[in-house]
């Protein structure tokens, strides 16, 4: 490629990525030249500023045409814009948490790394949303995963953290390999890695025998990505990793990584297998043919996530299972494949971002205060800090999906989708029944917060038992509660934004 060609490319569509990349570079250099004992928090604030700038530039792109550069490997469509907003929003909140996180257990030596590794992972997730090619998709995935492995184990002196990183890297590596092996079949059949080109070729697939090969590849990709989403039965790593990782990293894994996971699932499944014919052109696509497998995974994820969460006594483990369960609800939307699917998934992830980030902010404050992550540590929170308790209450209610909160609207969207078109009675019933099961553990936390007295020791501390909330936490909590309630009462704000600016369904396949 000559320099002229290089210059003629429309690089401006990568502005948000460039902003993040540049800031990562700046932070690395700053970290290098900063005196050893200087507080690295400033790096976190620069990171937040960069993310906000990137968000502004993404907003500016909304409403434009589909554009792609570099042989269609990087494409900017409405899907990319919508999910980039989520990922950046989640990333900003994680950094707010990170700046308020008390660095201990070895993290104090790596606070600089902490911030720019988070940003690198974020960059990976952003690349994933925009990729139009299996290769960029995979590179984005690895760019997200590798910093995440390090982040999970960044508290070097803590055994849990090391265990977390080890489990994450092994499981993550295996799952990437399986998914990649599945993708290789697709490449072998079509000779291309470009998603749209693959889709075009596969829809003309004449040989029914090859469809079996594709079915195999579908299952392998599903298994590989199932690991990433922590969908049952590939969820085993999640609780240990969530428990061991530092709280901001757990928040990152549960929100940003999950969002990125759904991005890749939707991209691959829908473009490749949504158009691959089972039996000659015009026959039903493999995705529809395989819908039952997806449904089984979705149902199993909801059931296992919600039921096992009941038995947890550690709040982070409980939230790990809760996030598995939420992945299950989202998979219901993927399974039902209605025209409303993109919006349902997007909105649910938006709601999930608010409620989970807020909840992790509270968890971070409480666990830093008490030094452990037992659910019992929340006892008497209402007495000690009524505002924090009410905030957590609202977020838990949203997670449980009660009306008036974004969590409810998100579930409603998915639920309507399950009955629109071909009705999925069983899946919808499982979803609603497991939602009721989830009341048990969400309200179990509330029981601790509101009904139980505070442990005697902390009662005695008097003023010492009060919480002082760092600025970053306050920001996260306000954003989380306002978002959860606002989108719960006026969901049309999000809908109107989507429909006036982003035409995902149209853009996705063009």
């Amino acid at each position, binding site marked *: 490629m000559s320099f002229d060609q290089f210059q003629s490319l429309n690089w401006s569509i990568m502005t948000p990525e460039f902003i993040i990349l540049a800031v990562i570079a700046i932070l690395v250099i700053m970290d290098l030249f900063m005196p050893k004992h200087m507080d690295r928090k400033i790096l976190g604030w620069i990171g937040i500023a960069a993310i906000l700038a990137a968000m502004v530039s993404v907003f500016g792109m909304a409403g434009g045409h589909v554009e792609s550069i570099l042989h269609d490997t990087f494409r900017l469509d409405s899907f990319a814009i919508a999910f980039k907003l989520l990922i950046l929003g989640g990333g900003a909140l994680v950094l707010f948490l990170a700046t308020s996180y008390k660095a201990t257990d070895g993290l104090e030596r790596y606070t600089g790394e902490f911030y720019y590794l988070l940003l690198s992972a974020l960059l990976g997730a952003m690349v994933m949303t925009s990729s139009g090619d299996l290769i960029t998709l995979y590179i984005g995935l690895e760019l997200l995963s590798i910093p995440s492995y390090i982040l999970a184990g960044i508290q070097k002196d803590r055994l849990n953290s090391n265990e977390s990183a080890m489990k994450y890297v092994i499981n993550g590596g295996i799952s990437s390999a399986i998914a990649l092996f599945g993708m290789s079949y697709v490449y072998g059949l079509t000779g291309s890695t470009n998603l749209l080109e693959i889709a075009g070729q596969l829809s003309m697939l004449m040989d029914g025998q090859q469809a079996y090969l594709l079915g195999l590849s579908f299952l392998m990709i599903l298994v590989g990505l199932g690991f990433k989403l922590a969908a049952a039965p590939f969820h085993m790593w999640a609780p240990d990793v969530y428990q061991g990782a530092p709280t901001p990293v757990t928040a990152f894994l549960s929100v940003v990584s999950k969002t990125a996971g759904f991005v890749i699932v939707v991209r691959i499944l829908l473009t490749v297998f949504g158009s691959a014919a089972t039996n000659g052109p015009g026959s039903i696509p493999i995705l529809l043919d395989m819908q039952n497998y997806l449904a089984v995974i979705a149902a199993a994820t909801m059931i296992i996530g919600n039921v096992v969460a009941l038995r947890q006594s550690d709040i982070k483990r409980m939230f790990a299972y809760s996030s598995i369960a939420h992945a299950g609800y989202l998979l219901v939307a993927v399974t039902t494949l*209605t*025209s*409303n699917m993109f*919006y349902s998934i997007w909105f649910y992830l938006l709601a999930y971002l608010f409620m989970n980030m807020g909840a992790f902010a509270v968890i971070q404050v409480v666990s830093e205060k008490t030094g452990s992550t037992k659910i019992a540590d929340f006892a008497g929170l209402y007495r000690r800090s009524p505002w924090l308790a009410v905030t957590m209450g609202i977020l838990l*209610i949203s997670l449980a999906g*009660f*009306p*008036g909160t974004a969590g*409810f*609207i998100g579930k*409603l*969207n998915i*639920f*309507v989708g*399950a*009955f*629109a078109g071909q*009705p999925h009675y069983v899946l*919808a*019933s499982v979803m*609603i*029944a497991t*939602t*009721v099961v989830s*009341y*048990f553990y969400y*309200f179990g936390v*509330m*029981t601790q917060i*509101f*009904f139980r007295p505070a442990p005697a020791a902390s009662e005695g501390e008097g003023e010492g038992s009060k919480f002082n909330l760092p600025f970053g936490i306050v920001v996260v909590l306000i954003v989380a509660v306002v978002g959860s309630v606002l989108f719960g009462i006026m*969901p*049309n704000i999000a*809908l109107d934004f*989507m*429909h*006036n600016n*982003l*035409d995902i*369904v*149209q853009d996705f396949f063009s």
Partner: protein
Amino acid sequence: MNLSWVLTTLVFSPLLGIVVLAFMPKTQEKAIKFVGFLATLPALALALAAYAHYLAGKKLSDFTIGHEWIQFRGMSGDAPIFSVYYELGLSGFQLLLVVLTAVVATLAAIAARYVKKEWKGYFMLFLLLEVGMLGVFTAENLILFFIFFEITLIPTFFLIGKWGYFEKEKAAYSFLIYNGLGSAVLLIVIMILFAKTGTTNIDLLTKIMADPSAPLSGDLKLGLLISLLIAFGVKLPIFPLHSWMLKVHVQAPPSVVMIHSGILLKIGAYGLIRFGMGIFPAQFETLATLIAILGVINLLYGAFLAFIQSDFKMVLAYSSISHMGIVLIGLAAMNEAGIQGAIFQVVSHGLISALLFFLVGVLYERTDTSLIENLGGIAKGMPIAAGFLLAGAMASLGLPGMSGFVSEFMAFLGLFKELPWLAAVGTIGIIMTAAYLLRAVLGMTFGKAHREFIGFVDLKGVEFVPVVVLTALIVLIGVYPSVLSSPLQATLETIMLGLGG
């Protein structure tokens, strides 16, 4: 005059109280209780004004309000696939329930004077609960109904779990889970209707279902109705879905039980009548015998078990089950007398149980017990309270001249016309009702005294307000039933039309 603001204000007026309370220091017990009470008044005033509006001969449809709210869309540019509107409205039936809710809520706010701790949180949740209840009865579409229905769950959970008696947390959980399951079933029904017809507006749905070319098969409709029966059966409660309700009645604080037994249980009856019977009249007819049998079982089961209880709260809890059986009996009759009886029973039981549970609260406050044996001879120490207790019991067992009689009479009149054998079995329940209530109440008022009641203060001051108001309403309905029957006329005609067609 444009009256469409009335219902929104009516439903959300308690929120004002929540806001005011939020800014009050939590130690000012008296002021908080007073504000909490005041905050229930705007809703009461508006509800009574709406009733006066009706009495003045004007249309209730003046109050209807509708706005666009939530939308579900597919491709952009397309019209929304589904829209959910913010729609509130009143019919005669709804008007009665709204007035009942407002009255009981205000009186329960007075009863909340016995709350011992954290008054601020208590009243904030209490007022939120009132919003939910008023919303449930005024919602004109199923999703809005569901939302308000769920809004009642959370405050009730906390009110029981935090301010209740010894086993409060267990009671709160079983309340949450049973009702959560009920509402889950309800949501499935709503979503299927929504996806099939594209609307959740209750009146529209009624019309669509009456149309023989409706996009739902008869079997599906029957399935939906059975699901509704389960969903509201938890709430009502119908045997064998009742065990949570016993726990709640025993463990919850008195003012919450007034609300719970007086209003929340009625949501089940309201739902069955408005949605079950209104939307699926033909299928309801198929199930009529089953419902009648369930009703008789409820009536007898409640009555027999109430007879052997030693705790007066348990007597009242089983008595509620028994009385809700009468609602089912009335509905199963599927004729005007029966349905009218059922609705009368809904209102009448709301008032009676509020009265009785208030008195339980009064007694418990003074004696720290609600066991019948320990309260024996209370008439000596507290003659006025004992007198009202007897009056409440008489109303409950259906003494002519009080509201209980009118409703039981009409419900049975209806069923005797349709299923005389079943009705005959049911009458055993009426006899049992008299037996268990007299046993319990006489045991308390005139029974053998195990302790001295000298020095106990009788009803005094503001405690008279709930007692007198409720007794007066009970007698009013008993001697002049058309306060209820005339607003109901239009509703009944609509239902009968649905059943006839």
